[in-house]
C-alpha cells in the first residue's frame, strides 16, 4: 500500500470538525464520533454498568457534546472533556442504580454484594486519554507504518517477525529499521496532538479592534477541587 492515500497529520482536525458540526455537517459529526467513541466507551465500561445503562451513558455523553459544540473553542479540551463528562455521567448512573437496588432489597442478608462504583478503576482517565491520542496519531501515519505498528503492538497475541513479513509483504530484515522510523513518526504525531490546542473557531466576537489576541501563557488547566469521588488522574500531562 505504498501509494495509498496518506492521511496527513492535522493537529487542528478536531477544531475543524467541531466547526463543521456547528454548521450542521453530519459527516463531520460521524468523524468526530469515530475519533472519540472508544474513549467514551472505555471510560463508561469501567463502572461495570448493565448494557442498557452503558448504552444510555454513551448516548448521553454525545448528546451533551452536541449541546456544547457551539460553545467549544479549544480543540485540545475535547479529549479531556469527553473523558471527564463520561466519568461523571457513568458515576451518577452507577450510584443511582446502586441506591435503587439497595431500596429493593428488603432482606439485607440476601443482598448481593455490589461493587462500589466509586472504587478507583484499574485504568485511569489520563491513561485512556493518552491511548486515544496515540491511536489518533497512529491513524495519521502512512498505511505502511500504521499496519506495521498495529501488527507489532495492537495484535493479540503479538505475531513474530516472520508472520508480519508474510502479512505485510515486508522482508524480515527491514522490519526492525522500518519499525524504528515509524515509531519516530508516531512520536512526532503524538507530540503534535498534545501541544496547546488551536482555537476551534475564529471567535470574532472576541477580537475587537485594538484588542490583543487571546494569550497562550499561562494556559490555565480546568479543574482543581472535585466534590465527587472519581477516578484518579495521575500526573498532569502537558496540554
Amino acid at each position, binding site marked *: 500500500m505504498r501509494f495509498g492515500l496518506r492521511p496527513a497529520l492535522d493537529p487542528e482536525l478536531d477544531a475543524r470538525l467541531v466547526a463543521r458540526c456547528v454548521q*450542521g455537517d*453530519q459527516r463531520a*459529526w*460521524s468523524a468526530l*464520533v*469515530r475519533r472519540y*467513541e*472508544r474513549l467514551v*466507551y*472505555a471510560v463508561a*465500561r469501567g463502572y461495570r454498568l448493565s448494557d442498557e445503562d452503558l*448504552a444510555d451513558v*454513551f*448516548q448521553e455523553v*454525545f*448528546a451533551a457534546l*452536541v*449541546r*456544547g459544540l*457551539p*460553545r*467549544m*473553542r*479549544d480543540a485540545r*479540551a475535547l479529549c479531556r*472533556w469527553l473523558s471527564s*463528562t463520561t466519568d*461523571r455521567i457513568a458515576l451518577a448512573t452507577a450510584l443511582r442504580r446502586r441506591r435503587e437496588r439497595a431500596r429493593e432489597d428488603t432482606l439485607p442478608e440476601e443482598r448481593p454484594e455490589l461493587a462500589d462504583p466509586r472504587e478507583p478503576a484499574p*485504568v485511569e482517565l489520563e*491513561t*485512556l486519554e*493518552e*491511548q486515544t491520542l*496515540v*491511536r489518533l496519531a497512529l491513524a495519521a501515519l502512512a498505511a505502511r507504518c500504521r499496519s506495521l*505498528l498495529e501488527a507489532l*503492538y*495492537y495484535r493479540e497475541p503479538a505475531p513474530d517477525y516472520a508472520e508480519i513479513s508474510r502479512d505485510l509483504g515486508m522482508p524480515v530484515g527491514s522490519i*526492525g529499521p522500518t*519499525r*524504528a*522510523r515509524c*515509531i519516530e513518526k508516531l*512520536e512526532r504525531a*503524538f507530540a503534535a496532538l498534545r501541544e496547546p490546542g488551536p482555537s476551534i473557531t475564529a471567535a470574532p466576537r*472576541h477580537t475587537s479592534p485594538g*484588542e*490583543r489576541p*487571546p*494569550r497562550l*501563557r*499561562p494556559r*490555565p*488547566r*480546568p*479543574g*482543581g*477541587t472535585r*466534590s*465527587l469521588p472519581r477516578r484518579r488522574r495521575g500526573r498532569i500531562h502537558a496540554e
Partner: protein
Amino acid sequence: MPSDRRRPSHLSTERLVDLLEDRLGASARRAAEEHLGMPCPSCRERLRTLGALLERMRGDQLEAVPEAFHRRAIEVFATRPAPAASTSGPAAWLTLAFDSLRDPLPAATRRAVGEARRLRFVHGAAAIEIECEPESADQCSLRGKLEVPEEQLHRIELRVAGERFDSWADADGAFHFEGVPRGRIELSAMGPSGELRAPPFEC
C-alpha cells in the same frame, strides 16, 4: 596524544526499541546498557519516553464500540435541536452576594484562606464562586467554581488590563487561572443557555 576516551554516539531509536523488547544479542545488550550506565541522561530519557509510548500501545484498552452504540451517537446529532440563531444575545448579569472584603470572614477562616479574596455572584439558579489570591506584586491566581443547572461545558473568560484569558470549567464547574495581571477583572461564563457576566472586581 590526548586520552581518547571518546563518548560513544547516542543509541539509535532502533537500538533502544530492541533493548526494550529484548531483541538484542548479549554483546549488543551489554554495550547498550554500558552506554546508558555512563550515564547518558538523554538516552535514558529517550528510553523512558519510548517505553511509555510502546506501553500505551501494548496496554491499549480502547475496544471497538458496538455498532448499535455508534448508531445512537450518530442519531443524537440528527435529532439535535436547531441551534440558536445567535449566540450573542444579551448577557445575564450576576449580582454580588458575598465579598470577603465587605463581609469579613471569621478569623479562623481567614487564617485558612490566607490573603485570598472570596466572592460569590448569583443569578437565579446560577452562581459563581471566586477566590483570588495575589501571587506577586503584579500577578494573582484565581480559582472558582461555576454552579449552573446545565451539564454542558462552560467556557470561562477573564479580561484584565487589556488581555483576555480563557479556560473551561471542568465537569464539576471548577476552573482556575494563574499568572493573571492584578487589576480590575471582568469575568464571564459562556454556556449553551447564554452568557453570565460578573460585575468587575479587583484582584
